[in-house]
């Protein structure tokens, strides 16, 4: 007798990735002919001292427990349960979280399911292996300027800025943009997530030759000779230009002064989206303007891989604000406001994923539809602004986008 578990509606190992949001799973008995039923089984973490940790529940939208008992019919009928990552106990390697299924007083093993509690992490807290996996995936996507990354670079140019900036769709657009890129990275290495750079804190370990590179006085970013980012290439030029206007041992500040702290971003921008969106200026633009060269300009910023860590933190700040102010429901006005410009209203689809090349949209649409994910069907291939708001699927489980932040929990 053994068990079989299917996660995220799939029995494929490629679907075995979760965050903090409890995800649907089913378990069934196999090879149980002749066994008197039902069979009571216990689900638990195989290892409690290492790897990502899991919580189990019978109900959706509930924080689970360390173990769960289920009665399984012997005819193989699947039984539904939910599994989520235990907050603050994410994975650090692929499939390092394991569901162990046992039965009886002796805890006889019936099966296991390796999975990963895959969340976006503070770049300062990544292990060396996590850093390397991220860099390698980015480098492969870039492929000396000839890879898929080119399309991400082309999505964020001077000519396309009105799709992404200067109006209320700023945060949803960049959430879709990061998600699309992250999914492409995961096609290279499924264990990779985008890290975030907390620009309001010292981040000395981010600006190292082994990771995002060390800038010299001329703004040339220098990488270790083992770092594949040394071959990074955009816009017909190899390398990255980045001059820090602050010390990497301090929080970011530039020609707009210090970046707004996270506490101020949470405390001082109000409880409604209309106030919070002012963060596009401070801290977002101030973080960009704490550098000279690529990052200082909206057109050239995506040429620097650090851009994606900066924006990942912007998105994390939005996620954290959403959690603190309980602003996940797109139907609630405080969760989003909307500007008159196309692409910035709640039900508008977003360029370029909608392939709309008619004015006032840009006349190109690089990249096609958003990359699909084996863990969730959301968002739709040409996502609307509203699909980016409830990223944890709190008000609509089918809208779960498949990412989480290490310090933003799922709270029912």
């Amino acid at each position, binding site marked *: 007798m053994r068990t079989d578990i299917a996660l995220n509606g799939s029995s494929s190992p490629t679907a075995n990735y979760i965050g903090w949001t409890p995800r649907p799973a089913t378990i069934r008995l196999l090879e149980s002919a002749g066994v008197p039923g039902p069979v009571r089984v216990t689900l638990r973490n195989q290892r409690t001292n290492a790897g990502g940790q899991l919580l189990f529940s019978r109900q959706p939208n509930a924080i689970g427990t360390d173990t769960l008992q289920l009665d399984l019919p012997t005819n193989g009928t699947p039984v539904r349960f939910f599994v989520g990552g235990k907050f*603050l106990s994410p994975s650090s390697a692929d499939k390092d979280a394991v569901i162990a299924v046992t039965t009886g007083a002796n805890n006889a093993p019936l099966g296991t399911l390796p999975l990963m509690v895959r969340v976006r992490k503070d770049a300062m807290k990544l292990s060396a292996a996590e850093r390397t996996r991220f860099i390698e995936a980015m480098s492969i996507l870039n492929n000396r300027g000839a890879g898929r990354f080119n399309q991400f670079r082309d999505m964020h140019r001077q000519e396309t*800025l009105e799709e992404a900036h200067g109006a209320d769709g700023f945060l949803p657009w960049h959430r879709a943009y990061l998600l699309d890129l992250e999914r492409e990275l995961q096609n290279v290495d499924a264990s990779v997530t985008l890290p975030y750079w907390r620009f309001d804190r010292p981040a000395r370990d981010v600006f190292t030759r082994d990771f995002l590179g060390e800038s010299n006085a001329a703004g040339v970013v220098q990488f270790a*000779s*083992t770092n594949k980012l040394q*071959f990074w290439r955009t816009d017909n*030029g190899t390398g990255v230009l980045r001059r820090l206007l602050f010390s990497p041992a301090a929080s970011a500040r530039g020609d*707009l002064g210090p970046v707004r702290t996270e506490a101020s971003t949470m405390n001082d921008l109000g409880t409604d989206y209309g106030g919070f969106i002012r963060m596009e200026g401070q801290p977002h633009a101030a973080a960009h303007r704490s550098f000279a060269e690529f990052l200082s300009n*909206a057109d050239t910023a995506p040429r620097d891989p650090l851009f994606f860590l900066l924006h990942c933190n912007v998105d994390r700040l939005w996620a954290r604000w959403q959690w603190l102010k309980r602003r996940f429901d797109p139907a609630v006005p405080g969760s989003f406001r909307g500007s008159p410009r196309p692409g910035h209203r709640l039900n508008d689809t977003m360029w370029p994923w909608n392939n709309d090349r008619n004015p006032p949209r840009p006349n190109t649409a690089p990249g096609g539809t958003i990359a699909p994910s084996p863990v969730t069907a959301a968002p739709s291939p040409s996502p609307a602004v509203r699909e980016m708001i409830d990223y944890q699927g709190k008000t609509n489980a089918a809208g779960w986008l498949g990412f989480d932040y290490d310090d933003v929990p799922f709270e029912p």
Partner: protein
Amino acid sequence: MDIQEYRRQVEEELEREAASASLESVGSDADPVSTAADPSASGERRIRAIRELAGSARENRAEIEILLRLLRSDSEPPAVRLAALGALGQLQFTSPLFNEMRPEFIDTLRSAVDASDEEVRTRVLETLAQHKDEYAQRRLLAGLRGEEPPLVPEQKAIQFLGYDIHAEHYPLLREIVERSDSPGVRREAVRLLSSDPTAVEILGRVFQDRTEHHEVRRAAAGALATLAPQDLEGRAKEVALDPGEAPALRATSLTALEHFGNPAALEADQEFLERLDAGAARTAITEESMDLGSGPAATELDQAISRFKGRFGRK
């Protein structure tokens, strides 16, 4: 951790930080427009006012024009001009008006390229270069060709040219690689030659020139990786096996091979792997006795060899 307890902790922390921030708060300027433009106000007050305008000018053409005026004026203190440039830089991201005001912004920047302060001049030229401005390119080229006094150091001028590189720039860049005695300048020129199909020979020469600075040679490897990957593969193998080479160069060569090389061919080339082992040992001795390369570079070489062998060595 219990999520409600976590929420309570976070909210308490935010309250504490809000309280301490209000103690330190300097308050906002009652009239930032007047303060920003007031030459009799202290520089610190004016800069604070300009930073406030960065937020409020988002939908206010008159306020954006004040910022443009401050940036344009060579009589303003450099810190005020840089703050104005910063505020305009923020508005480029956030202002729905900015696109239509872009021509005025570019005109203002052009009028400031001869600013007496070097940092103002550099940031203004950088911004124009990022906007692919032809006037800035002409001035940069004139400086590089010695036709007029350079506005910025040669290395920066090449970097700025790189924001919009054209085929007609390549002969000048090749000439700079040959004539400049500054490794930083040569490296920037090499970096931009990565799109010049006629530069393969010169890049190959730089990459294998043991008298050249290793950072320039690494830049040449990066350029060749794009321009002539097969050419690089052969050269990289030679460098990787050469115990007299700088460890950083050998490690870069191995990283390039691992990243871009033909996997089947590398797996089949067991002789290369065996020779790589022997070469590594000799480098360790040479480095110790002759003080070639840095400690980190030697460690990086060890890592590169280990990773390469892990990937391509016989299983």
